Structures are given as C-alpha cells and as structure tokens.
C-alpha cells in the first residue's frame, strides 16, 4: 500500500519525528511504499545537515538521510516553513543572498502542493506532530 507521512515537529523537542521514522521503517519492512515524507512547520528542522548530536544519542537527521538513500525516499521540506527557520539548499541560499546552505542529503525543498499531491496519490496519509 502507498503511504504518505507528514512530520510537523522538529527533532529532539518532541517524539513525533522519532515515531514517524519508526513508522516509515516498519512500513518499508512490510513491503509498503512510502510515497513521500513531507516536513512542515518545525518539522523542517529534521532536514538540517549542521546538526551535531552527542555521539551516544541517535542522529535523527542522518537517520532520515540514510533511510532515504536506502529506499529512494522522497523527503520534502516545505519552502515557506524552511525560509522562516533558516533552512536552505544551494539555490535557495543563492536566491536569498545567503552565504551558506544547510539542507541534508536526501531532502529537497518544495511547496505545499507536494503535501496536497501526497494526500491525493497516497492511499493513507499519517500525520505526526504535537
């Protein structure tokens, strides 16, 4: 079955991101398809590659990137939420005249239309947040 997943909370502040990750992993293990994971609101903070958690703690961002590489996941970060929170890829940094970019591997920045499309294309949409 095709699942869409929405993550509305950032890493390390709320369990939502952890639960979403475990859900996606379990769904893939059962042979389901993850059509898209959409990161919205503070959830966009799951996509910064500048995070450096303690070594004995889980690395939430890296974990998403690795899962994406392994299963060709489509991890989409909401552009408006990302701009507000200082999250950008190379082209966004250039467009906004910033001197750095910080989007982690496996994530891409796009618009809210991607959430709507996931809602239409996926057979189930599961929301994780606070």
């Amino acid at each position, binding site marked *: 079955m095709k699942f869409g997943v929405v993550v509305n909370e950032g890493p390390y502040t709320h369990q939502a991101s952890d639960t979403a990750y475990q859900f996606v992993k379990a769904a893939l293990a*059962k042979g389901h398809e993850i059509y898209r994971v959409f990161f919205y609101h503070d959830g966009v903070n799951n996509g910064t590659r500048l995070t450096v958690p303690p070594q004995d703690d889980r690395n939430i961002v890296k974990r998403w990137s690795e899962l994406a590489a392994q299963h060709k996941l489509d991890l989409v970060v909401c552009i408006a939420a990302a701009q507000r929170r200082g999250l950008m890829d190379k082209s966004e940094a250039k467009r906004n005249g910033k001197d750095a970019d910080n989007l982690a591997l496996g994530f891409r920045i796009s618009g809210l239309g991607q959430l709507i499309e996931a809602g239409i294309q996926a057979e*189930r949409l599961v929301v994780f947040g606070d």
Partner: protein
Amino acid sequence: MLHTVNKSPFEHTALATCLTYARQGSAVLLIEDGVYAAAGDTAVSKQVQEALKRVSIYALKPDVEARGMQNRVMDGIRLVDYGGFVDLVAEHNAVQSWL
C-alpha cells in the same frame, strides 16, 4: 477509521475529544504520551473502559515500555509494535491524528 492520540489524558483533552467523535467499531491507537490513558486505576480509566464497549483500543508497546507502564495496561487494550501500527493504518480507510 483509525484515530491516533499522542497526548497524556491528564494534560490534554485530545483523548476525550477523540472518544466523543470516534464511531462505533472504529479503532483508537494510543502513542507517545497518549499511552498513559491505557493505565488502570486512574482518573480516566473508567472513561476508557466505557469506550472499549464501542471502539477497539490499542497502545504502542515501545511507548508503553519506555514509560514503564507495561504492568499497568488495562484488560481489553491491545499492545502493538510499529509493524502493528502500520497494519492498523492499512486496515482502516483513513487515519485521524488527534494532535
């Protein structure tokens, strides 16, 4: 329909609201701090037991265990792992997250 509740019933009305709207025969999955509602002998356990007559109630086992609640789960509430969570989502036509 599958309803998910991730808030403790002692600090939020998410569970109460969910149970008000959940139709007969639907399923409620308690996750994260929502699993506190699965405990017996609390201020909300009566309400949860009443709800069990109309809806199926599940609790996410890893979250129950992370909170040391494994010996306090009321009869009638079924424990599932993440794979069980996935199955519940697949089995029901839609998912409502009571955030």
